[in-house]
């Protein structure tokens, strides 16, 4: 038989690139097991529950075919390499330095499991410890966990934590918190008997007068977002003071931790739990995930913190090393009495965040944060100078602000798209009384020329 006549295309069953076992190895292994066919290995599955047919799936694609198909799907999306993005609302278009994913994407990190064998996993563990340390530095809190799913679910876990810590059953949540965070909070807390009450906002920030009226001996905690969903700065210190006087905790959600480059950190003004979204720290937009849930708190609360914690210790030679610690809080030990059911977290995003924070460094982080403030302030100025466009609220802001528009914001966005501009978030979807309000975000990625172009386009829509 010639090589040509034994074409590789006519094999009975194609050898798959991800499955090393060859036909002859399979035969050898079956012999060692003591069975004559693979089918015998499935004899314990009752015939009645077996699938008597092949799965109905599209035919397998080779790698080049897959790549072509995926490119087609990807190109059907208007992504931020093609659009000038003024959209934020909980997912932020910051520059991701090249080092971040060159390092975080290394196979040694990417394809590792949870560090159950600490001696073999010092890289992941130390990076986790460094992440926790940096997050503490940023928030001025005592301890941070190794990550949660995302900002919204971390915020919900913070509320559950407040209930457990205070043995009280009511959480007051500002309506200036991200609407999706509030929805998630509702989903998480309802089955646990936590009573949620929404605190109204006034001039774009939490109405502290209303909050004072709502506090009671049932109040486990008060949840604000800072900067809040409207981009405005809350009076966190006053809110914390009110919460504490009622015997409750103050929880602060941070949707963009880059804000902490310029803003007084929550730990400095009295927050008890900081939760929120770490995507802006080196994470890509990824159409909403994977993102990075952050959670940090005070020293005295560490035994109620959900999720994994990395701690420093020593080995038998006295050298520093790192382990997962205080695991008696967690589900694999405590089962139904655990502080949360979380197991898999977002470790890789935490690693990326640590690399991002290290690369920006002490001065760079501050610089980027200031760039956000200045660019947004400029945009605010030029846009509100256009007749018909006015600020919805006059509270100070970080990199987002709300504008009342002469046309429905959805219509403005539609007209901006052909100009390659991704406009802000129309707020009417979440706040019926803000149907003419538009939430714009201006990060360090936007240039003055792009802001001027946006203003020029809006000028035409008066």
């Amino acid at each position: 038989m010639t090589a040509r006549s034994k074409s590789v295309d006519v094999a009975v069953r194609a050898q798959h690139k991800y499955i090393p076992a060859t036909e002859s190895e399979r035969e050898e292994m079956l012999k060692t097991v003591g069975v004559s066919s693979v089918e015998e290995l499935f004899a314990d599955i009752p015939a009645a529950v077996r699938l008597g047919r092949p799965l109905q799936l599209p035919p397998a694609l080779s790698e080049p075919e897959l790549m072509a198909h995926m490119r087609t799907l990807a190109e059907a999306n208007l992504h931020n390499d093609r659009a000038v993005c003024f959209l934020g609302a909980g997912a932020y278009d910051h520059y991701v330095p090249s080092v971040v994913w060159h390092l975080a994407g290394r196979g040694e990190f990417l394809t590792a499991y949870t560090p159950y064998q600490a001696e073999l996993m010092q890289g992941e563990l130390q990076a986790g410890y460094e992440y926790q340390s940096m997050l503490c530095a940023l928030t001025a809190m005592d301890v941070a966990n190794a990550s949660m799913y995302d900002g919204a679910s971390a915020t919900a876990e913070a509320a559950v934590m407040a209930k457990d810590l205070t043995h009280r059953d009511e959480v007051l949540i500002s309506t200036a918190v991200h609407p999706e965070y509030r929805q998630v909070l509702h989903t998480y807390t309802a089955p646990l008997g936590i009573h949620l009450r929404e605190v109204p906002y006034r001039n774009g920030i939490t109405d502290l007068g209303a909050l004072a009226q709502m506090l009671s001996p049932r109040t486990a905690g008060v949840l604000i977002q800072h900067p809040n969903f409207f981009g405005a700065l809350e009076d966190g210190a006053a809110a914390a003071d009110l919460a504490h006087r009622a015997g409750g905790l103050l929880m602060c959600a941070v949707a963009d931790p880059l804000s902490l480059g310029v803003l007084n950190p929550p730990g400095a003004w009295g927050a008890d739990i900081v939760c929120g979204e770490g995507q802006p720290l080196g994470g890509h937009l990824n159409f909403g995930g994977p993102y990075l849930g952050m959670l940090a708190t005070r020293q005295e609360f560490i035994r109620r913190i959900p999720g994994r914690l990395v701690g420093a210790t020593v080995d038998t030679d006295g050298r520093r090393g790192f382990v997962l610690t205080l695991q008696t809080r967690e589900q694999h030990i405590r089962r139904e009495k655990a502080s949360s059911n979380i197991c898999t977290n977002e470790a890789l995003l935490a690693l990326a965040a640590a690399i991002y924070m290290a690369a920006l460094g002490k001065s760079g982080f501050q610089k980027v944060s200031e760039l956000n403030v200045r660019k947004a302030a400029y945009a605010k100025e030029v846009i509100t100078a256009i007749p018909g466009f006015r600020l919805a609220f006059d509270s100070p802001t970080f990199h987002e602000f709300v504008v009342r528009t002469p046309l429905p914001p959805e219509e403005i966005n539609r007209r901006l798209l052909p100009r390659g501009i991704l406009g802000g978030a129309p707020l009417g979807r979440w706040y019926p009384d803000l149907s003419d309000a538009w939430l714009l975000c201006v990060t360090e990625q936007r240039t003055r020329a792009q802001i001027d172009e946006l203003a020029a386009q809006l000028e035409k829509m008066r």
Partner: protein
Amino acid sequence: MSLRSRGRDFPLIFELSVPERVGSSYPSPDVPLRPLDELIPARQLREEAAALPEVSEPDVVRHYTRLSHRNFSIDEGFYPLGSCTMKYNPKVHEDVAGLPGFARLHPYAPVEHAQGALQLIWELEHLLAEIGGMDRVTVHPAAGAHGELTGLLMIRAYFHARGEARTKVIVPDSAHGTNPATASMAGYQVVTVKSDARGNLDVDALRAVMDRSVAAIMLTNPNTLGLFEERIQDVERIIHGGGGQMYLDGANLNAVLGVARAGDQGFDVMHMNLHKTFTTPHGGGGPGACAVGVKAHLAPFLPVPTVERVGERFVLDYDRRQSIGKLRAFYGNFGNLVRAYAYIRTMGADGLRQVAESAVLNANYLLALLRGAFDLPYDRICKHEFVLSGLRQKQQSGVTTKDMAKRLLDYGFHAPTIYFPLIVEEAIMIEPTETESKRTMDEFADAMLAIAREAQDRSEVVKTAPHTTPVQRLDEVRAARHPDLRWSPR
């Protein structure tokens, strides 16, 4: 590896810090430079910059590259962690997930301009529905435990809609810890049911606890012993007979892909760990991604938004009156959905069936090589994994399962899952997956057998292991008694 430090502490990034070093470059402001306190009230401003490291870009690259060398990954070697399905993570998945059309897409981009992403989610949900034998699928959850919560909350909403107040969830004693923890978070009392002598759920014990107060059973099948629940049909009759719902923890789906589907076994809800069966990388603990499949009667309760196809368009449907709401912001760990989708499209039906067959053959082969040297509490044909016990070694020479796991690290392998499931003393849970070769398994078996001999002949070397890792055995008790969870500037 020469880079592994010996004799001194490996530095923290903070310890490399030198004042005034920078590791990034950004443009100078091109907008007016007004004093910051004109833009933000002074009392809201940070007084002192956060104590982040001050390092150059080469410092950052070298530090984290060296840390990566102090790690163990599936790219480097065999990772037989039972119940974790540490299979090879295809490189092409990283390239497709990194396409700007996916990676740089804002979640609130207008739906008309996110059609590729929505189509991918819609198709993935339908592919997974076929694989699981379910009617609808959501891909919102970020991880398995998050999927469990999603599933139980849907069951809760279903009973609520029927006006039934059921308060309990049944969990086998062999279950993952997340199952009872999730049941608690969903507001249920946990009822534990024991396993029988063959490693199946004890059907008589189940019958004894089943009544109208039970909302659901959470079952893993194949279970955490790596065994198929042979009496699954009896279980189904008992649970459904009492009006309860069947929840499948799909952690072990790899074993039965294309062979047996949850929907056909009577499960009403299931979750699939895309980071296990569908090979999205574990990232050192996450991100995961999870799909939850349901039968039609639970579809009204799916989290919002769902992705729907209207003609040739894909839309997000938020207007679902009976939805349990949201468990996270946005629509799921999309980057990992891209990878899982790419995997299913690469494998096709025949490829996925081969996955199950090879995973099960590999496990049974490895079991055959090891069964003589270790105790085997449940002696049956296994599925994708099996559970040995180190009890013999512990009794004969005082060498524990933990000691043997640490010793394996010296042989260049990651250890199996140990001390789980809880019903097996000194448990050693081994899952080779389909992407390992016979040669790798032969080498691993040789190492395990060598360690079993060492336990008898030179037990000290096992009890003090590991010896070749970047650090020696770590003091976990000290870490817990004196928590040191962050570096602080002196």
